[in-house]
C-alpha cells in the first residue's frame, strides 16, 4: 500500500515535471486528450472483465445487490452534499 502510494506519486511528479518544463513532444501534447480517453476506456474495460470473471462478485451481487446499492448511493449523495457545503471556501 505504501509502496503503491509512492509509485503513483513518483509517476505523477515525473509527468508533472515533464509537463512543467515542456519537455514533451508537441505532437504528444496535442494528442494528450485522446491518449487519456483511450487508455482510460481500455482500463475500465479490463476492470469490467475482472468483475465479470469473479463468480463471487456476480453471485453476491444478485443476492446483496439492493442493500449494497442503497448503501453506496447514500454514501455518495451525502459526500457530494457535504462537499457542496464547503466548496465555496476551497
Amino acid at each position, binding site marked *: 500500500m505504501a509502496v503503491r*502510494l509512492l*509509485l*503513483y*506519486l513518483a509517476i*505523477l511528479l*515525473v*509527468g*508533472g515535471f*515533464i*509537463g*512543467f518544463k*515542456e519537455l*514533451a513532444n508537441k505532437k504528444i*501534447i496535442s494528442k*494528450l*486528450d485522446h491518449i*487519456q*480517453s483511450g*487508455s*482510460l476506456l*481500455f*482500463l*475500465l*474495460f*479490463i*476492470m*469490467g*472483465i*475482472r*468483475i*465479470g*470473471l469473479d463468480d463471487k*462478485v*456476480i453471485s*453476491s*451481487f444478485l443476492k*446483496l*445487490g*439492493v*442493500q*449494497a*446499492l*442503497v*448503501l*453506496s*448511493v*447514500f*454514501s*455518495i*449523495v*451525502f*459526500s*457530494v*452534499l*457535504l*462537499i457542496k*457545503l464547503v*466548496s465555496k*471556501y*476551497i
Partner: protein
Amino acid sequence: MSFKIILSVTAGILVGYFLLPEYIFDYTDIIIDIGLCILLFFVGIDIGRNKTVLIKIKKMGLKILLIPIMIIIGSIIGSWVGGLFVNLPFNESGAIGAGFGWYSLSAMLLSSYSTEISALAFISNVIREVIALISIPIIAKYIGDVESIGPAGATAMDTSLPIISKSTNAKTAVISFVTGVILSIAVPIIVPLIINLPF
C-alpha cells in the same frame, strides 16, 4: 464520456463473464497496474503544464483537508441513513460506508467480523466505484468541480483520478489526489473502529 464509460465497463463485465476463462483474472492485475501507471503519467503531464496550479494549491493550505473530511463524514452518515432502509445496524452500515470505494481492503478488514458483511462491503464499494466513474463527469458539469471528488472516495488518487482530471481542471486533479491519499490511509483505521461500535 459517461456513456462511453458505462459501455466500457459493461462490455468488460459481459466479456469476462461469458467469454474468458477464469485464469485470465491473474493477468488482469498487472494490466491494470501498468495501464494505471501510464495514465497517471499523462495526468501528471497535464497537471504540470498548468503552471499556476501549485500556487493555487499552496494558497489553499490546510483547507484542502476539508474535502476528505467531508467525504468521511458524508460516507458514514450516508450509509447510516441508507442502512435504516435496508435494516442494518449502525456499526455494520457505517463500516461498509467507511470503505470509501476501496472494495478489496474494506472487504478484507470485515472478513473476520462476518462473511456476509464482508461480501456486502465488497459489492457496495464496487458499486460505489462504478457509480463514481459514471457520475463524476455529470457532477463536474452540473454541480461543481470539487463536488465531483465526492463519489470517488479513496479511488480519487488512482482509478477515478483520470476521469476527474479530464472532467475538471489541474487544480481539482491535485486536490483529488491528496483527498484519495488521505482517504486511503483512513480506511484501515476507521473501518475497524466503526465495526466495533456497541450500537
